[in-house]
């Protein structure tokens, strides 16, 4: 394992040394690919406790706490999400589950314990709010990289700045968005959305990055609605990767009786 790592890193170093020109001209598709993997496919699976604070334009706060479980089927491909709510208490045990697909619509489920109801939610439009926050469902599970055309508009000391334009503009509310991707971690550190009247209206930022199992992970993130002034801040804690989540816990059966992994 150790030897393999050394070999791998020296291989990368060699490539960089021998092909300086290519390294500088890393093409935009691979930047976007790597960013997608870094942001959504770290490890084979993972869990985190998420504390969410929604602050509206009047400064009123609402808090949510949930546990996020994720398992990837293939890196960059299908994956599963399981969101188990802990707070506020009146939504405790509520579960939101996603089976993310690449070329077809995702499958999404909502379990409402107080109504004893498992409901499937059509995922034809993923740009709806995630439980009333400034994050969208698409932010939680990731926007398909094939849905936009990408353009590297700037390379700074720290970032690759990529502008993304939707291939099918009718399905989204933005006209384009620009992502600042960290050159070393490939984590998207800032995403700025432009609306159809060419106005900046939405900003998602990574405010803190930590490493868990050597994997750089965004631990504090904030989404701001620039026109209303409301924002949502999420903090990730108890982050663990590669904990051996089984695929079968991401099934309808587990909605009513959540797996133990959600507890801690």
């Amino acid at each position: 394992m150790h030897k393999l790592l050394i070999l791998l890193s020296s291989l990368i170093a060699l490539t960089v040394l021998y092909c300086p020109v290519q390294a500088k001209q890393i093409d935009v598709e691979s930047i976007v690919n790597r960013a997608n993997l870094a942001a959504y496919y770290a490890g084979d699976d993972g869990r985190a406790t998420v504390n969410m604070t929604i602050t509206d334009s009047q400064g009123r706060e609402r808090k949510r706490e949930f546990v996020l479980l994720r398992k990837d089927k293939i890196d960059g491909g299908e994956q599963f999400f399981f969101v188990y709510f802990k707070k506020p208490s009146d939504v405790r045990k509520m579960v939101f589950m996603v089976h993310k697909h690449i070329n077809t619509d995702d499958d999404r489920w909502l379990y409402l314990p107080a109504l004893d109801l498992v409901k499937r939610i059509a995922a034809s439009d993923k740009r709806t709010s995630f439980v009333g926050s400034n994050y969208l469902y698409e932010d939680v599970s990731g926007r398909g990289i094939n849905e936009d055309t990408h353009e590297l508009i700037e390379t700074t000391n720290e970032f690759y700045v990529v502008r993304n334009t939707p291939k099918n503009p009718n399905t989204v509310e933005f006209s384009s968005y620009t992502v600042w991707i960290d050159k070393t971690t490939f984590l998207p550190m800032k995403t700025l959305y432009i609306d159809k009247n060419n106005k900046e209206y939405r900003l998602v930022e990574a405010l803190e990055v930590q490493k868990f199992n050597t994997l750089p992970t965004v631990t504090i993130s904030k989404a701001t609605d620039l026109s209303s002034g409301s924002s949502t801040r999420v903090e990730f804690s108890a982050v663990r990767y590669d904990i051996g989540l089984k695929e079968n816990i991401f099934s309808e059966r587990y909605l009513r009786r959540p797996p133990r992994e959600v507890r801690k």
Partner: protein
Amino acid sequence: MQPANTLIEFSLRKPKTVTVLMVLITLLLGALIAKVHVDTDPENMLSKDEFVRVFHDQTKMEFNLHDVVVLGIVNEHDPDGVFNPATLKKIDTLSKYAATLSDPDNPDRRVVDRDIIAPDNVDNIQQAGIGQVRFEWLMKEPPTTRKQALRIRDDALNNPLLRGTLVSEDGRALAIYLPITSKDFAHTVSSRLKQKIAEIGTGEDQFYITGLPVAEDTFGKEMFIQMAICAPLAMVMIFLLMLIFFRKLQLIVSPLIIAMCTVISTMGLLIGTGNTLHIMSSMIPIFIMPIAVVDSIHILSEFFDEYQNRLDRRATIVHVMGHLFKPMLFTSLTSSAGFASLAFTPIPPVQAFGIFVAIGIMLAWLLTIIFIPAYIMLMKESSLNNFGVSKHVSVRAEKSPINRHLRWIGTTAIRMPWLVIGFNIAVMVVGVIGILMIQVNDNPVKWFKKTHEIRVADKVLNAHFGGTYEAYLILEGKNIAMTPQKAADWLTSYLDQRLAESPAIREKVLNEILEATVTTTSEQELTNALTKAWENELDQTAADDDIGYDRWSTALDALDRLRNQKEIFKRPDMLNYISGLQAFMNKQGDVGKSNSISDVTKKVHQELFAGDPAHFSIPETVNGVAQTLISYQNSHKPDDLWHLVTPDYTRANIWLQLKSGDNKDMERVVKDVERYLTDHPAPVQLGHNWAGLTYINVVWQEKMVTGMLKSFLSSFVVVFIMMTVLFRSAIWGALAMIPLTFTIGIIYGVIGLIGKDYDMPVAVLSSLTLGLAVDFAIHFLQRTRMTMARTGDWTAAVTDMFEEPARAIFRNIIVISVGFTPLLFAPLIPYQTVGIFLAAIMLYSGLTTLWILPAILTVIQKWIFKKEIKAHAQERQALNSNSRKNHA
């Protein structure tokens, strides 16, 4: 009257200085008008710190509400109404266009794009195949087929939040609601929309724009046109009439100059002192003008009748001013007092109006006193040659129709005084009955004529939709705080049973509750302390200890439940209560539609259960409601919820759509709600308050009515005292009040009888009545006393009175009532009202003065003229005895 003589002497000697001074001061003050700041907001009828305004603003902020411009689209030709691809495409274009509207100079004045209610900007929750729900824009893109178009209609009709609001109940019309950040942006939005509509072509569709902000803002804009057209036109009319009466162009220019100088100076003063030009203050010129010319007409009228007898302008002026000075001063003072009393109303624009009309009146008086003599002196004596009655005959012989009628009035008054008195009392009784029928009501939309596009739009849209007038009923829990002891008791009883199967945990929990009761001082402290402790326990529970995990979760649940008791608008019983209240309001007929958190909950609940109508209900538990609502927040516009409830669920907003903006209708709604809340106590004691423009109008109206009444009564008393001082007799003072009392009685009686609403202009007119009616009485009585003192014979005095004094009054009546006929053609109702009632007031107060006063005086002549009769009797006796002596 020493200073008066000095003043008149001065202007007779230095006419040029006087004129130059007047023009200079007018120009100086007039320059201040450039600083004008227009304010057409009826909200400003109340001072900024008035509770209802503070609450309205607070509510708007708290629930993110804005004033709304409504764009309605109706299609009477297409079988599907507006739900055809072509019309929906237009609607989509207009909505997207409206979203971009903002003031380039001030980006804060704009359409709030995110809160637009339009098919492309509202989210809908609906079934998406078996077992699935979907959050989807109602009209993501304009449809291309009839089927798609009808689908949009049906989706909207199926959503109780949209039915009657966005889509008409009959499914044929559609309304877009455009929230604006500032009311004074409404007119811009409306005109830009009209441009855009013209651009895309109406086709078979009709487009209507309405909403209170549009009405109010448009009124302001049109108000200026009115001021610019009507006031000068009225001036021209007065001018023409005077020309007919006095025939001397040069001479009658003078009252016009006085009117103009007075209006300009007063407006300059108003604006210069930092007042805004409000709907009320825009009427100042119209009120000042008649009063400003009245004094001049008295002087000119007398001058006209007297000049040919003397053929010396200086002597004539001195003579005329001699007996007009006192009545003019007093009429001006009383009119001023009448208006100044408005300063005591609790409505700032009415205060400004009253004060500045009062100032204007005194200014007009001053200018009349100094400028008319100066003006006459500046004319060449020769140019007066043919002025006035040309023949050197007694004026009495003149047989013009005016004179004949005036004399007829005078004759009936003295021949059949009781008939005249009786008739007027009968009229007065009818008047009082009418007054009792008066309906206090106002509605800014009704300030426009019936044919005005805003009125038309208002009618059409309110026929189709739940209503375009908005009011907000805010509910909040009262006395919901708990003591730590009470909270602890609740926790104990809640957890005792639920933890029974784990005695160890149960004991620990109950002990900790007991401890916390001692160590904490508030419910919040108690729950916080316990939360911390029990979360710690939960964390320390082993991963495989399912039971332990469950038990501590239950304990934490209990704490949240306790906390949530403050979140009363998540409680099913409270939501059902709101639904009950809404159903009641909708049944009363004034509320076309209402929207609340209960409606959202029911709709989402229903869709979660496959659209089953049986589930169009409030879930049975608090958690059920909470989870339903959090499902709703997975939509495109989760924040829509916060228009109806605060995020802490302690305050709820019921959004009412009223079909009418009439204050009386809003008042009825308020009363209905009061009754319901008293008769049906809520599960949690509730406090309630109202916000919304429709309600604000009710509040200022109430203040206006009581304020006006008080101010009228107080000025009535003040005028009476002034009259008593003027005539040095309470009886004469009382006599002076009679025409005024009758005029008020009959005018307001007619208002009540014909069902004309008692609104802002009508209320203000009472002050004008007071001013004008007392004017005539003063002139009449003052002259009567002078003539009586001279002749000592009532019949002779009355005959005298019905010559020049009566003609002066008559000319005034005609000039002012006809002079203001241009107001009748104004497209704005308040101006029409003022025009009509001004004429009616002039006519009736003149009539009562000339009719009732002589009749009453005839009846009481022996008593009231005791002194004069006695003096003359003695004189005659002396005369007789002298002649007898001579004979002897």
